[in-house]
């Protein structure tokens, strides 16, 4: 056996003495640090209580917790912020058990994590969201930083692994939701940009085509009158002029649709808007078609782009007149206010519950068969004879009305007639 010398004893003792010294000194140092100001002491007390409470709620005994007040990286993250309630613990009734009582300086975004004791939810842990990124994914340890009274205290709490998993799962769920939200917003912006680009291109193209159509229309028209009636030349020139007319109508329709994205809304009385459009149509009505207007009282004001809303109404009135064909009939325009307070009723129209001005345009013409009615709002779908319609009218009307917060509905029955109803949100008079 080796002799026990004083040197070997020292080698044995030294580490132990070192540890004892540290164990004796460290708390003293800590104690010293924390009691240099009474404020520190109070806050320390608070943080201790918080730690114990979390420990109780999570139900793991014993939880070890340590103080670290020198975590500078967290200090930097919180510099400049007002003291706020960064952490709060509530029991299952919602009563706050622990948390600092400094009122928050502004709206807080908190994440709520239910706390289980293995059997049931016993409370809620609320953590201010900006703190969550600093939760390290150390197995079995959760780090919760407390901002109390403007000073940062970091409490390390050893939490059972499943709690950490719950925290991190929640974190990633929220991050995913946020990413999805941002993605959708970007997609919408991209779509809007693309639409704008297309609208600009369409406008330029329309202008160019109208220019090129001018000599065709002008010279075609002149030569047509010079060609002998019934001659082959006349027939060909008729066709040239017709084709030019159809192209002109299509360009105008597409342009009208393109303008639906640039709205200049102004308040206008419903009766004034409808009245103006009716005046436009009335004088060109043949005597066999009668036009009636019914008003159920003051229909108030709407905030719309008058030119576009007017053109949508004009289109619907023309459709009603065209539906009556060569026979006699009646076009009825009714104005009313509808309060769509029932979410279900409003929902079927795709609208929020609110007050709406309702303009109904009805004809007692032949109505539409279901096959046609289902496609009525499709762009480029028309049942009119070749050259008489571009098929863009109802589609454009629908887009215009929807862009202004309203809805369009179609009610039709073969043999009975068709009613188109426009809903536009009511506004307060200016």
């Amino acid at each position, binding site marked *: 056996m080796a002799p026990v010398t004083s040197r070997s004893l020292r080698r044995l003792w030294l580490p132990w003495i070192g540890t004892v010294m540290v164990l004796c000194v460290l708390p003293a140092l800590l104690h010293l640090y924390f009691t240099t100001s009474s404020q520190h002491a109070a806050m320390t007390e608070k943080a201790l209580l918080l730690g114990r409470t979390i420990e109780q709620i999570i139900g793991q005994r014993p939880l070890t917790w340590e103080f670290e007040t020198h975590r500078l990286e967290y200090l930097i993250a919180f510099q400049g912020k007002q003291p706020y309630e960064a952490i709060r613990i509530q029991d299952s009734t919602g009563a706050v058990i622990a948390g600092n009582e400094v009122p928050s300086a502004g709206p807080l975004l908190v994440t709520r994590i239910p706390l289980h004791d293995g059997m049931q939810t016993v409370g809620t842990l609320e953590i201010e969201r900006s703190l969550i990124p600093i939760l390290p994914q150390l197995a079995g340890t959760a780090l919760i930083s407390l901002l109390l009274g403007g000073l940062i205290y970091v409490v390390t709490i050893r939490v059972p692994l499943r709690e950490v998993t719950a925290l991190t799962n929640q974190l990633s769920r929220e991050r995913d939701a946020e990413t999805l939200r941002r993605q959708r917003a970007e997609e919408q912006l991209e779509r809007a940009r693309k639409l704008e680009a297309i609208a600009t291109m369409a406008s330029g193209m329309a202008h160019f085509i109208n220019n090129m*159509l*001018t*000599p065709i*229309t002008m*010279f075609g*028209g002149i030569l047509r009158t010079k060609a002998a009636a019934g001659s082959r030349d006349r027939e060909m020139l008729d066709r040239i002029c017709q084709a030019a007319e159809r192209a002109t109508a299509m360009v105008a329709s597409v342009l009208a649709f393109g303008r639906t994205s640039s709205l*200049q809304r102004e308040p206008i009385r419903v009766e004034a808007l409808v009245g103006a459009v009716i005046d436009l149509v009335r004088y060109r009505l043949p005597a066999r078609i009668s036009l009636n207007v019914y008003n159920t009282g003051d229909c108030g004001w709407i905030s719309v782009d008058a030119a576009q809303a007017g053109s949508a109404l004009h289109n619907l009135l023309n459709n009603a007149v065209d539906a009556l064909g060569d026979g006699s009939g009646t076009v009825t325009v009714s104005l009313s206010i509808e309060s769509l307070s029932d979410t279900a009723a409003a929902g079927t129209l795709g609208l929020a519950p609110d007050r709406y001005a309702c303009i109904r345009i009805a004809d007692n013409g032949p109505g539409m068969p279901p096959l046609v009615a289902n496609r009525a709002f499709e762009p480029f779908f028309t049942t009119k004879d070749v050259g008489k319609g571009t098929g863009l009218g109802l589609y454009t009307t629908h887009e215009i009305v929807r862009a202004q917060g309203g809805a369009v509905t179609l009610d039709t029955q073969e043999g009975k007639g068709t009613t188109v109803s426009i809903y536009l949100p009511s506004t307060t008079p200016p």
Partner: protein
Amino acid sequence: MTTILVVDDEEPIRFAFRLVLEDAGYAVNEAADGVEALKALSDRDCDLVITDIVMPNQDGIETILHLKERKPGLPIIAISGGCQLGFAASPGIPPNFAVEAMLSKPVTSVELLTTVRRVLTAHGA
């Protein structure tokens, strides 16, 4: 002889208008843009100006404003390349903008001549 100035950047348009107007007995001068138009006004007589309003470019409108400034009594017919209604509602039109008549392309020879006659009669040419 009544002289008409046709302003349009597209040669086919100027050609078509010239043909129709000369056939109807008017003398026609051409200009391809605003600058040429103002020059033509100072070089020659002019009883009526027919000018394109290029959209969305504002050149046509500026030209008209300059023409109005230079010769206030000279009647102007504006021809737009897009839908007429849309033009009236589009933003950026200065409030002092006014012309004697407005047509939209494509026009027929009948429309053009009828409008020309109407405007000239109204302005005592």
